[in-house]
Every structure is written in structure tokens, then in C-alpha cells.
């Protein structure tokens, strides 16, 4: 049984997640289980995603790499994959940071799932280095750099490297106490591996204080770097490559829709872990309800940001704006836009608006999956549009380029490299315990059942 009924103070019967009833030993044993032995489903998934990753690399070499860096268009789907991964695996750790900031207790079993994706950031980093060579000099064209030395290559690269390092640091700092727990509970090779990873963590007051601060600082820094990096990527890889596109809101739109996908990825990961990962006790309606609310809010923001861009161009009606509307919204890339609109806005709105669905497990997971598909189409729309114009030095689009239709290699690159990133995320599970033992047990201490008038309620400790 995953939960039992409890009466809330307002008289409603709600189910109390079993995670808050578990003894700490059970949480430790669950965390160790996935480290000690990989299940058959896990192995199968790992093999499939590894094969996909290899296929992706082969397609990448056979296609764009062999065609060289002279033209941008063959690289379109590499950019799509890069954009998708940045918007999903890159955004997921931000979900963890945000929930830590608001100090929600429901987050404790979810945080680790979101942070784990930082491990996959090496894939977009490699793709970035392949793509950044395609960017032309900023001389003679509008850009964010105004003649800065080394721009855009050097500064974009530095931001990307800093982001990835910070992501790994955040993941490692948040996982270090758990690595120490694993070290103390296992023997042999595993003990040696985790002793090295835990780096002598013993759980002294000073060490805990350092962990708290380091997690907070690395988390905050990660979000700042992420927003900065997404701003640069959206400006240099999309806006600057479409003549006449100087939409100031676009970096914000690109970042907000990435946050939406970060929540979606966390939801889907939580769903997979609940169904196949044996984490049913940890991922309960409480977590899906809270993440579902976030998903709904960010879906609405997706619409708001797109609408504000659209309405300004619509009212402006200058030739420059009309061309952009035709390229990005109406004619050339209408289909990807419509799909993204349906999956990233309509789906969260129409499904998650209903409390009953949002309070369930299936609804938020399905919407999360739909948002991820929508994000693929959104990236296709943006990068196909930005990698197609031939002359990026003209003031506005005089000739609207035809839609870029992907070939087999493009699809293989997209699916394969996403598979490769998932493979890295899965591999990280062998090094970082799930659930986060120290956070979930910490949550246990701060929850208690107390009598309240004629009933019994759950009380939550708020230490600060």
C-alpha cells in the first residue's frame, strides 16, 4: 500500500504519501539498492540508449561533419538537438534550485531526479563546440556584441563551459553526503569508488553547513549562468542569423520555454522512476500535483511570451515584421509552430487546468511528455528558420527561404544524440543514489502527525 488516509484540518480526506511514513533505514536501503545492483529494465534502457547514442554520433560524422563548416544548413538538426538538450537537461537542475528556494517539502524526493540531468550536459557542450565554429564574425551585422574582442566565439564558449562545470559542481555537492552514506554501507570496489567521491565527508556540523551553503550558491550560480547562456545562444544562434529579427523578448521566451521543458523532463523522469524505477513510495501524488501546477503556470507563460512578440509585429506591420511573421508563424514554419502551440500551451492548459487531473499521477506525466515533443518542434521551427537564410548581412528578410525538410541523417542525429544524453543520465544513477537519502530523511524529521480538534493532521516543521 502506497499511502493511507488522513484527515486534513479542513475535514477533507487526503492520502498521506508513504514516503513520510518510511523508517530512515528503508530510505537508506532503497538508495543503496540502485547502486549495488542494476535491474534488468535499467540495463535494457541503458543498452538501447547507448546504441542510439552511437547511431547519433555516426550520423553526425557521416552528415554535417563530413560536409564541413562552410554552410550552416546541413547543421540544422545538430542545432535542433543542441537547443533541445539545452532546453531540457540544462533546465532540469533549475527546477531543483527553484523548489529549494521556496523551501517546499514536497521537493525532497524530486530534487535529485532534476539534478541528475546535469550529468548529461556534456552532450550539448560537445555539440556547442561543433556549432560555434559556424558563427560568422560579428562585423557588419547586428549582434549583441558591438565589436567586442573574441565575440561571439570566445564569450559564448566561456559561458557554456562555466555552465557545465557549475552544473556538475551542483550535482556533486548535493550528492556528496549521500556518497558518504554509500561509502559507509558498501564493501569492496564500490566502497573505494564512493570513498573517493565522498572525499572524507563525515557529517560534522561544519561539513553540513558547508554542504548547505555550497548547494545554495552553486544552485543560484547555475540558474544565473543558465539564463545568461540561453540569452547568448538565442541571440547568437537564432536572432542574429535571421535578418531583421531583433525581437528583444526572444531570449526571455527561449529561456521560459526551456524552464517549461525542464519541469516536463522532471515530470517524465519522475513518472519513469515511479513506474519502472521502483520509486513508487517516493513519488506520490503530492509531487506530481506540485510539479503539475508549475507545468501549467509555465505553459501559460509560453503563450504570454509568444503572444507579446506576435502582437507587436502584428501591430507594427512593417515589411521587416511581416517577413518575420510569415517565416516564423504563418507560412514557412506554420506546422512546427502549430504543433508547439498545441503541445506546449494547449495541452497543459486544457488538461492541467482541472484539479482532479492535476492531483493525479498520469495527467501531469502525459502533459510533460507532450511538452517535450512540443519542444522538439519548437527547436525545429527556430533553428530551421535561422540556419536557412543565405545572406545574414541584409537589414531584413527580402527573400523568405523555403522550409528546411529533414533527411534520414537529420532524424538519426536528433534521436541518436538525445538517446546518448539519456544514456548519460541513466549512468549517473549508478554514481548518485536515488532518492536523495539525506534530504528525504531530513524531511521525515520535519513531519509529524498531531491531534487537531477531533482528528489527526500532518504538521510540517519550518525551521527558518
Amino acid at each position, binding site marked *: 500500500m502506497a499511502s493511507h488516509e488522513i484527515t486534513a484540518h479542513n475535514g477533507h480526506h487526503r492520502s498521506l504519501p508513504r514516503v513520510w511514513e518510511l523508517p530512515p533505514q528503508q530510505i537508506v536501503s532503497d538508495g543503496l539498492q540502485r547502486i549495488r545492483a542494476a535491474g534488468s529494465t535499467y540495463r535494457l534502457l541503458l543498452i538501447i540508449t547507448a546504441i542510439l547514442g552511437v547511431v547519433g554520433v555516426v550520423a553526425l560524422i557521416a552528415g554535417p561533419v563530413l560536409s564541413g563548416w562552410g554552410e550552416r544548413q546541413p547543421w540544422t538538426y545538430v542545432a535542433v538537438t543542441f537547443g533541445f538538450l539545452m532546453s531540457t537537461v540544462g533546465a532540469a537542475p533549475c527546477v531543483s534550485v527553484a523548489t529549494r528556494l521556496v523551501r517546499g517539502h514536497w521537493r525532497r524526493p524530486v530534487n535529485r531526479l532534476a539534478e541528475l540531468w546535469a550529468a548529461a550536459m556534456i552532450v550539448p557542450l560537445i555539440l556547442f563546440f561543433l556549432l560555434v565554429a559556424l558563427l560568422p564574425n560579428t562585423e557588419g551585422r547586428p549582434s549583441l556584441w558591438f565589436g567586442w574582442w573574441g565575440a561571439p566565439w570566445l564569450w559564448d564558449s566561456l559561458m557554456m563551459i562555466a555552465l557545465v562545470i557549475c552544473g556538475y559542481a551542483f550535482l556533486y555537492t548535493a550528492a556528496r553526503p549521500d556518497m558518504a552514506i554509500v561509502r559507509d554501507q558498501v564493501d569492496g570496489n564500490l566502497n573505494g569508488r564512493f570513498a573517493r567521491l565522498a572525499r572524507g565527508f563525515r557529517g560534522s556540523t561544519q561539513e553540513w553547513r558547508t554542504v548547505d551553503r555550497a548547494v545554495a550558491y552553486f544552485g543560484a550560480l547555475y540558474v544565473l549562468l543558465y539564463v545568461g547562456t540561453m540569452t547568448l545562444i538565442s541571440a547568437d544562434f537564432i536572432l542574429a542569423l535571421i535578418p531583421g529579427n531583433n525581437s528583444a523578448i526572444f531570449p526571455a521566451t527561449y529561456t521560459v520555454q526551456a524552464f517549461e521543458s525542464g519541469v516536463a523532463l522532471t515530470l517524465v523522469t519522475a513518472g519513469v522512476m515511479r513506474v519502472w524505477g521502483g520509486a513508487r513510495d517516493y513519488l506520490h501524488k503530492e509531487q506530481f500535483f506540485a510539479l503539475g501546477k508549475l507545468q501549467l503556470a509555465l505553459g501559460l507563460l509560453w503563450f504570454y511570451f509568444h503572444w*507579446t512578440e506576435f502582437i507587436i509585429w502584428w501591430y507594427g506591420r512593417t515589411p521587416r515584421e511581416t517577413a518575420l511573421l510569415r517565416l516564423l508563424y504563418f507560412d514557412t514554419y506554420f506546422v512546427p509552430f502549430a504543433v508547439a502551440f498545441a503541445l506546449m500551451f494547449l495541452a497543459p492548459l486544457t488538461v492541467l487546468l482541472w484539479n482532479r487531473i492535476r492531483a493525479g499521477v498520469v495527467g501531469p506525466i502525459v502533459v510533460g511528455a507532450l511538452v517535450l515533443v512540443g519542444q522538439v518542434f519548437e527547436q525545429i521551427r527556430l533553428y530551421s528558420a535561422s540556419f536557412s537564410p543565405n545572406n545574414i548581412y541584409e537589414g531584413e528578410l527580402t527573400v523568405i527561404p523555403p522550409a528546411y525538410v529533414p533527411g534520414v541523417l537529420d532524424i538519426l542525429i536528433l534521436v541518436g544524440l538525445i538517446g546518448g544524453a539519456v544514456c548519460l543520465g541513466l549512468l549517473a544513477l549508478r554514481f548518485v543514489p536515488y532518492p536523495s537519502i539525506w534530504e528525504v530523511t531530513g524531511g521525515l524529521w520535519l513531519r509529524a502527525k498531531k491531534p487537531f480538534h477531533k482528528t489527526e493532521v500532518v504538521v510540517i516543521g519550518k*525551521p527558518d
Partner: protein
Amino acid sequence: MQERHSFSDERIIRDLLRPVTQTSMMNWVGFIVLGTILTAFLFAVAWMFYWGIGVTGLNRAAFWGFMIVNFVFWIGISHAGVMISAILRLTQAEWRRPVTRAAEVMTMFSLMTALLFPVIHTGRPWRTLYWAFPYDFWRGIWPDVRSALVMDPSAIMTYLTGTILFVYITTIPDFALLRDHSTGWRHSLYRVLALGFKGEERQWKMQIITGFLLAAIMLSIFVSVHSIVSWDFAFSLDPVWHSTVWAPYFVIGAVHSGVSAVVTLMALMRWLFKFDNYIRHEHFDAIGRLLVVVATTWMWFFLLDIFFDLWRQDIADDAIMHIRFFEWPYPLLLAFVWIFGYFIPVPIWAFRRFRRNIKLMFWTSIMVNIGMWAERYWLVVPGLQAKYQWTFSWLPYRPGPVEITLVVGSFALVGFLLLLFAKLVPPVPVWDELEGQHLAAEIQVGKRTVPAIVREF
């Protein structure tokens, strides 16, 4: 660490009704000072109506000046109510309880004040009736319904109506309480306003559900209002105004200034009404953390706006950016925006110790609103000065004494109305505070006793 005290219901009611039942010397001073400024405000309005808009510093190129800046500013302040009340209510943030009423009421009064300014700005307000009743029926001249200038009053009126409803619904239990604690004309007034509220289970249920529903509806209105205000500018092809980022940029700026204004109000209420036990350090701490996020997001949008204005490399854009960066007094205003709006307050708010220092929070919140007023001026006024190549006058805009009086008077107006409201309705919701007290608990973690709350599903 929380500093929650456990008081009896009677003590809470007595403390929180004090501003309604007693009038302190400071209250009288407030009424007199604000009333005097308000008189000057009314005189300035009358003066302008009599002599015409020529008594202001507005000229043919820059015909949107102090009054429109002030309109945008007060609309911004009005966003505090929904930000604090609706979002925190929906997310069940416990620290919202003592600040919701003040924030909602400030929304209401600042919206009313904001609405005054475009009307005053017409110079001949009675002629605004032509918007609804065109003077030229036979020529079919109607206002362009697609114009943001038509959407704007509709959005603001909807927001105002919603806010009044929201304030009223959330005040009904307190009206009932006041009815039971008053005599004479007050008793009659509160009896009508309480709508027969007796505290029955069904009545509480309806009150809470209505509050939640209104909060959810208000959220969409809240975003739309300042977006539409930004579109008053951005729908035009005016260089630097015609920007896609203005809607969310205005909204986040509004939240920044509005939430800061709530901090100002919290500190004033604590000092004026002796609410030390209810508006506590932990509330300033929580709102300070929120402000760090809001301010940083605002700064990001601010930078996006500047960078993309420069990105265009268009002659007209560059001319206005030149005014903004290099022509007096705009560089000074920009410095105010940066220093007061971000670089002084945010590093201070980053530290827990400072977030719990009420004087520091008060002064930094004032600073933010000085910065945010300057920001609106920096955004709006230069936009018109170099709009046309052939303009009637190249003279820069200089506000006259009338406009300055109007701006100062608007602050007095909002302050006066807030003081007056506090004489009729408790500025901290009594029922909300009582509920919070009942939901408060403690748990034992090791050797420590930790404050806790009953989980609200």
C-alpha cells in the same frame, strides 16, 4: 528563526482592531500633513483645468511627461496586491497573512490614483466622454477599438472592479467581527457590509472558495493590465518604444516596485500601529528573498531592452538612445535606476541579517521606488523627443510646478486613502491571523523545538 508568539484570540482581535478603535497622535499628524498636500494637489488640478494644459511643461514633441510617467508608476505599484495576495494565497505561503490586506488595499487606491492621471492629462476631462459618445455621429468617427488606448481603460477598470471585489470578499469576516464589536453608526455600517456573515461552516467555505477563484482570475488580469499599459507605447512605431519585450518588462518592473512598496507599508504599519507581534522579522526576510528574485529578473529584462535598442543600429533608435545615455538629466536618471533599483538594495537583501533589519528594508524599498519612478521617466519621455525628423520644437521636456505638485499629491492621495481605510477596516486581516494562529504548531527535532504549521491540502 521564527519569532511567533502564541496569543489568545481576544488579544489578537484587540491588537488588530486598535487602528480602527483608537486614533493615535501620529494618525492625526498623518491626516493633516497628507491632507494639506492633497489640497495643493486639488488646487493644481483646478489651475490646470482653468488655464489649460499649457501651464505644464508639455510641448509638441514631448506631449507625454510627468503625468503619464506617474500613471505607469501607480499602475506598477498596484501590482503588489495581486502578487502578494493571489500568488501567495494560491501557493499557501504562510507568511502572506499579515501583509495581504494592506497590499490589496494599496492596489485599489493606487489603481484609482493611476486612473486619474490620463484623465487629468487630457486637460479637458469632460471631453473624454467622446470616447464613449463620439461627437460626430453622422461622420461615423468612433474610437479605434484596436488601439491600446481603448484596451487600457477597459483592462484597468476590470482590474479595479476585480480588486474591489477581492478586497471586499476577503474582508467580510472582519466586517462581521467589527459589527459585533461596535455600536452606533459603525455598527449599522458594518452590519450592511458583513452581509449577514455569522461564521457558519458553509459561509466560511463560500468565502474561501470565492477568494481562491478571484485570486486565480485576478492573476490573468494582473498580467494583462501592465502588458496593455506597455502596449500604449509599444504598439506605436516610435523608435525604442516599439519593442517586443516591453510587456513582460513592464509587468516584472511593476512587481518589483509593487512588492517594494508593500515592504514600505509593512514597516510603516509596524511602527504606526505597533504591530510588532504580527508583522515580524521573518516576514521581511521572506519578502526580501522574493525581492532578490524579482529584482534580478527585472534587471535581466532591463538589459534586454537596452541591448536590443542598440542592436537595431537604426538612426532613429540611436538618436533616442543618445538622449537617454548622454543628455541631461537622463544619465542621472539612469544612475538612479541602476543604483537605487538594483545595485544598492539587492546586495543588501542577499544577506539574511539585513533582510531582518526593518529600517534597512524600509529605506531600500523606498530607494527601489525612486529608481523605478526614474526608470519610467527614462523609458517614456525621451521616446517622443526625437520621434520625428521635422518637429515643432526641439526643446527638451521640463516639468512645471503644476506637474510636480500633481506627482507629489498623488503620493499624498494614496497615503491619505490608506490611513482613512485603516480607520474603517483593520489593516491586517484578523480572521486570517486567527486562522494562522490555529494552524500553528511545534514539533520536536532532536533537542530542538521547531515551529511548524498544519499542512493545508
